């Protein structure tokens, strides 16, 4: 199909075309690859994002784990555990070892709905 796009930043487009040529791709092939990457979110999403998304998918069904630690890593629910030691063992066993994980103790960790205090913030004297 033919695609006409208006109001594209000329500089960015020029760089994109140059990079496509350097990689030996046609412009349309390079654009398709860029679209694939964006749709798979492999470039844009961090571990923090995928783990939070996994948590949000299960959030309404976590009551059955009340009093236990639920763990999310690599964008998946890993399990529910009774102690921090078990959580640690479960996280260590995951390959590859996650750099980020969500660990929530259901019914114990509380959301703080209001602004908390930090009197004076980070006010300190400094030499003039």
């Amino acid at each position, binding site marked *: 199909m033919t695609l006409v796009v208006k109001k594209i930043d000329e500089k960015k487009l020029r760089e994109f075309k140059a990079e496509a040529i350097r990689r030996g791709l046609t412009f349309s092939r390079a654009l398709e690859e860029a679209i694939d990457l964006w749709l798979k979110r492999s470039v844009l999403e961090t571990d*923090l994002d995928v*783990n*939070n998304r996994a*948590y*949000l998918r299960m*959030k309404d069904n976590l009551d059955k784990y009340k009093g236990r630690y639920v763990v999310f890593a690599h964008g998946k629910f890993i399990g529910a555990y009774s102690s*921090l*030691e078990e*959580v*640690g063992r479960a*996280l*260590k066993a995951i390959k590859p070892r*996650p*750099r*980020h*994980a*969500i*660990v*929530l103790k259901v019914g114990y*960790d*509380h*959301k*703080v709905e209001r*602004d*908390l*205090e*930090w*009197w*004076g*913030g*980070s*006010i*300190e*004297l*400094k*030499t003039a």
Partner: protein
Amino acid sequence: MVGRVYRVKDCLAYRQGTLTSYPVLKIKLFNIVGEEFPEEIEAPIDTGFEGSLMLTSDDYKFFSIGELPRDYWRRYLTLAGSIVMRVARAIMQVGDFKLEIYVEAPYYGLGKRLMGREVLNKLILVLDGLRKECCIGQHSSHVS
């Protein structure tokens, strides 16, 4: 007048600020998988901070293996405006006493090391301003 005796287990000298000295507490920290943070932390005592233990964003990375979901993060009101803090679980060791705490770091910005009221309220501390020492106390019922 209330008479009460505390036995001091350990004391740490105040650190010198620009104008006045301030109390600090020396702690060890462990992340959720039991790894020890590579340095002992001297956290300034800040009763004006309602939260737990604030760390710099760099320090915090070590603990992001046990982070709370985004909707459990916290927001603080400061003179500079509202600040959102990421929150993670950690184990803190003071002397031979270990407890599970939250560590926090700003989502935007560098942050700093501070011990807030959420942790301080779990400890017995003696701020001896005349001696310029911050001491960990033990209640009189434990004094032999």
